């Protein structure tokens, strides 16, 4: 199932933030979007997950046009988003949080079965099942957010800066998890602040700036592009016309 964005214009009610974004996420790829703060990376993910609706353009998944779908219908298509900000419910337990990942499922037996499987797979969820999600560290919460995705049957996971604010130890753990999810055959579209680490584990790279895609291709090509060095230095990447 290929995801394609065609000439997307989107924003938050004011001026457009995305100004003609087109990109393709191949099935089975681990695509990494990099770019400076405010480039519109998160906005791209929010457009795909249906939290915001594009003003113009098309989002297609496996040939189906999905822009305009409710977040729920997009979940039903197998597209899940782990947002940049925390997305657990701090006053619910870890187990309740994970179970709610299956909120859209009607079959309660299936929900319990999947919950059991997630607990087996993620020891953290099992160990801290009865604790309030808000009492976990930032990194642990991120891992529980990943675990929650497996209450559904994800085909495409959208990860927005999963490593943000993590210590080096947890950073490694989170990245290992991203690789593992990808190795299982789930397509991953990730936004990463850490350009180098992000592109190194990715198969494809996309560079965004000012609400547009400036560069994309196999991640090695993007990583070794002559102008990409400026990004590592925290600068911008204004491509020559």
């Amino acid at each position: 199932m290929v995801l394609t964005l065609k000439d997307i214009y989107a924003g938050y009610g004011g001026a457009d933030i995305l100004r003609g974004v087109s990109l393709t996420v191949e099935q089975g790829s681990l695509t990494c979007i990099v770019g400076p703060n405010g480039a519109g990376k998160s906005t791209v993910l929010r457009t795909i997950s249906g939290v915001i609706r594009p003003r113009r353009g098309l989002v297609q998944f496996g040939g189906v046009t999905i822009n305009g779908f409710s977040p729920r219908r997009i979940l039903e298509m197998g597209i899940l988003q782990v947002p940049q900000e925390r997305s657990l419910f701090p006053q619910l337990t870890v187990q309740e949080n994970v179970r709610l990942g299956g909120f859209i499922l009607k079959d309660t037996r299936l929900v319990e079965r999947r919950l059991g499987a997630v607990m087996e797979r993620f020891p953290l969820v099992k160990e801290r099942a009865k604790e309030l999600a808000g009492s976990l560290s930032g990194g642990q919460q991120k891992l529980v957010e990943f675990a929650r995705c497996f209450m559904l049957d994800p085909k495409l996971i959208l990860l927005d800066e999963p490593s943000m604010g993590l210590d080096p130890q947890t950073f490694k753990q989170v990245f290992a998890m991203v690789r593992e999810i990808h190795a299982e055959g789930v397509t991953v579209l990730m936004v990463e602040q850490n350009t180098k680490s992000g592109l190194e584990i990715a198969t494809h790279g996309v560079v965004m700036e000012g609400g547009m895609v400036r560069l994309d291709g196999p991640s090695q090509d993007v990583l070794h592009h002559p102008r990409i060095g400026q990004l590592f230095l925290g600068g911008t990447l204004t491509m020559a016309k």
Partner: protein
Amino acid sequence: MSLLLDGIISGILTGGVYALMASGLTLVFGVLEIINVAQGSLIVAGAFLSYALLTYLHINIFLGLILTMPFMFLVGYVVDRVFVRRLRVDRVMMSIMVTYGVALVIDGILTMIFSTSYVHLQTAALNQSFPLAGMRVPMIYVYVFLMSVVFLLALYALLYRTTFGQALRATAQNRNAARLIGIDVDQMSSITFGICAALAAAGGMGYGAISSFHPNSQFDLISRVLVIIVLGGMGNIGGALVASLLMLVIEDVVSTVWLPNWSTLIFFIVLAMTLALRPQGLFGSKEARQQ
């Protein structure tokens, strides 16, 4: 000593119905992140509905809730659907304006139909009383208190014992995350507003059974109920419950032991003192809300 006890008993008995009136408001704040200043007029509307059923159709005020609560649920649902849901930016400020508008409309309709004289829900139970700690407690106070307890328990069961309730609490804790797991946040909000209005119908009936009211009673009610939910910690239902009992006991003790005129003022004095010491209210936690 016995005056003090009287104040405490009557404070607890009336505190129950205030807790009921406040619970809906604090629930709406928690889930929708808006302040519904129409709550006072929804309560008065509920009281007048019970009054109309009682006066014209001779329907018992407690039985009448079977009609008034679903009706008020619909009113609340529609108010959210038509007015509140549209607010996307600056929701708190805008919601105050919009719901104040709703309050004025309800106020106008009630004034037109019922004029502005004070009425009271007269029941047979009103004339019965029993002795307790040296005073006579009217039975209606006990009935209204028990009704409030029943509805608060039902609300608790809905929130903490059902999947729907869990989804509602999840929405209150993190709206965006709720959306991302497929919860229809807009629908949840409308239902919450409906529940708030239905609780106002029951609360209004209880209020009208123990005190007289007219359309303008909404101003007094909304200020008291707002004090209660701020004191209890915005969005915290348990907090609203404790704050209701506390405030009504303090008010009734002040009015029986000291001077009735002081009793309303004491409401705001306690609020000011509490907020000076704990800006998040007695049971509010800043961190949880900001998450």
